[in-house]
């Protein structure tokens, strides 16, 4: 409680901060869900943003020209309450009150980003989103490149997940990790754009290979009772069941209930096992679970451990993937301000687009056509992991594997 109170007061102070900050500080805004059910992720992203800005202003960051002159910035973070219209209001406030020259937004939600990107042509403001993945955002950019010229998407398309799952399953079939059976595929997903856009791309790729989708069960976000769905799936007997959730409680419950029900076929999880609480709560039911994508692993990657230590020292809580992604997105923005050598919107936007930067979680480079960070391969990797003896091991791509996949 006290920590939350302090955090809120700090927020209130940071709101006052731009007034006292040095006159040459460039005002930068960020929008994240700081209240409501997604506030945990929002807070993690906010901490990532703040750490990046702190290091940047203190002369300890990855500058484009090390040792050269770099601008300092004043960051204001506003809440979107996970709602697009609240996000739009917050952005307008940042624009008119703080006079921001760059907006990092939305930090987490695709649907808020869809609304925010409309502001970029209206206010001539460069906007860079952090974690949102929805392919629809990239489609929107492609539909009117001129209008969204100043908008950039700081994460790969959700179709990258689909491609990863598709490529991995192909490999797993060849190596006998998964049995092909009757090529029947089933989904249990959360009823959000995230769940559906993942299911849609995967469906498209797999049906082209001759698979049939026997069930797509979309449940409200945060659901935890899957028995009716699992009973239905059991009768459909899929060879591969894919689950997509952002809420970790749904994921934990589903994995446990699948184990209880002794579901036939293989189960593969998307996204939720990245949350640290997942491993704490899932227990034995998680044994052998295959999931994607393990992008932040302080246990096995030294650079991630060092970042975790910095977050611990600064905020007193462990780092998550969202911390790292927030940190890297903010760095991209700050480096663009340095490259642009000023706050001209087009120059800043061009500098973001020209980014080629190795940050904590991979190499960030934008596709000039859809303004989206490139996923997979040599860029932002999407490795597949498996829970083995209570620890997450990388099993694919084989080049980076830390353990053999277990059937």
């Amino acid at each position: 409680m006290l920590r939350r109170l302090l955090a809120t007061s700090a927020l209130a102070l940071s709101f006052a901060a731009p007034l006292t900050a040095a006159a040459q500080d460039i005002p930068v805004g960020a929008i994240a869900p700081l209240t409501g059910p997604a506030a945990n992720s929002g807070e993690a992203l906010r901490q990532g943003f703040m750490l990046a800005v702190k290091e940047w202003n203190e002369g300890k960051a990855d500058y484009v020209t090390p040792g050269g002159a770099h601008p300092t910035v004043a960051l204001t973070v506003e809440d979107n309450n996970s709602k697009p219209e609240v996000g739009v209001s917050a952005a307008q406030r940042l624009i008119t009150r703080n006079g921001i020259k760059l907006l990092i937004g939305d930090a987490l939600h695709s649907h808020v980003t869809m609304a925010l990107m409309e502001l970029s042509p209206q206010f001539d403001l460069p906007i860079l989103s952090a974690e949102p993945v929805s392919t629809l955002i990239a489609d929107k950019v492609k539909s009117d490149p001129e209008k969204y010229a100043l908008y950039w998407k700081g994460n790969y398309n959700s179709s990258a997940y689909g491609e990863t799952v598709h490529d991995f399953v192909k490999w797993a079939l060849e190596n006998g990790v998964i049995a092909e059976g009757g090529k029947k595929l089933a989904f249990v997903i959360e009823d959000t754009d995230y769940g559906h856009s993942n299911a849609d791309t995967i469906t498209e790729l797999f049906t082209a290979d001759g698979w049939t989708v026997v069930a797509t069960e979309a449940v409200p976000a945060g659901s935890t009772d899957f028995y009716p769905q699992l009973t239905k799936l059991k009768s459909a007997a899929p060879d591969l069941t894919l689950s997509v959730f952002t809420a970790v409680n749904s994921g934990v419950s589903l994995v446990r209930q699948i184990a209880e029900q002794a579901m036939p076929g293989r189960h593969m999880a998307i996204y939720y096992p990245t949350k640290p609480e997942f491993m704490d709560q899932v227990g034995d039911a998680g044994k052998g679970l295959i999931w994607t994508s393990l992008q932040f692993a302080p246990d096995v990657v030294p650079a991630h451990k060092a970042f975790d230590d910095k977050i611990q020292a600064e905020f007193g809580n462990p780092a998550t993937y969202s911390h790292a992604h927030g940190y890297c997105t903010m760095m991209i923005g700050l480096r663009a301000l340095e490259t642009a050598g000023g706050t001209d919107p087009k120059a800043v936007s061009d500098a973001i687009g020209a980014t080629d930067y190795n940050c904590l979680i991979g190499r960030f480079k934008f596709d000039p056509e859809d303004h989206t960070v490139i996923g997979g391969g040599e860029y932002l990797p999407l490795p597949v992991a498996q829970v083995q003896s209570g620890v997450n091991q990388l099993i694919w791509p084989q080049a980076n594997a830390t353990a053999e996949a277990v059937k």
Partner: protein
Amino acid sequence: MTGAILIETLLNGLITGAIYALIGSGIALIYGTTRVLNFAHGEAMMLAAYAALILSTTAGLPLWLAALGAILLVMAGGVVMQRAVIAPILAREDWSFRIIAATIGLSIFLQSAAQLIWGEGFSALPYFFDGVLVLGPVRMPWQRIAILIVALVALGLSALLLYRTRFGQMIRATAQDAEAAEAFGIPAARVHTMVFALSAGLAAVGAIMLAPLLSVNPWMGVPYILKAFAVVILGGLGSFGGAILAGFLLGIIESFGVTLTSSEWRDVISFGLLIAVIWVRPYGLFSTREG
């Protein structure tokens, strides 16, 4: 649909229905006795789950003792709420809408307070019972079967209390006519308070049995309260037995609804059914006039 699937679907429905019955019967009990519609009933579930979680993990009590402690705490909470919020409003004109408004306010207040105090993270109680019952192709974990059994026992005990004890007689007399009951020396105000405690206790039993499956979070009561209201209306507002029957019925309909259509339409089916019933039988499936 094979026999095993049919049995499993039916079992799933009965288990969901047991929870609806527990929550719904509590609302029906309060409405039947005091004509109060309590929108903060879902938060009794939420608080019970947090209490059990804190008593077992932070205070280190054994699970059954933590559960018992949580039920008693929430019953005490019901008493405080009835005394502090409900009773003062009952004394005023136009109270019936004011109580709805006040309990909606209380419900939002408690959710936000829980979020501020315990954060928006998800935590879970451990299973009370391990293992899975395997009967041929049908598999059911003991924890789920326990939900059904505990709910039936709790509802059965409440029915005994209502229909076989002096206290139950007092409740039923107050329900029929509070003023007349007072004339016969029944302390109607105290009976009202006790009914709130009993109702909160039923919600707490449901919440604690569910907590290992659900995960404990500030909003865990929200999906249940609307369903419970639907159950109460379907069963005939204020009818204890009607709410129980309707609870099981809705659980089974939902379970088959998911199997036959798709998960995302489940709640549309439930609420659509509610409105359809209101068109045809305004005072519930099992009664012909206002309760």
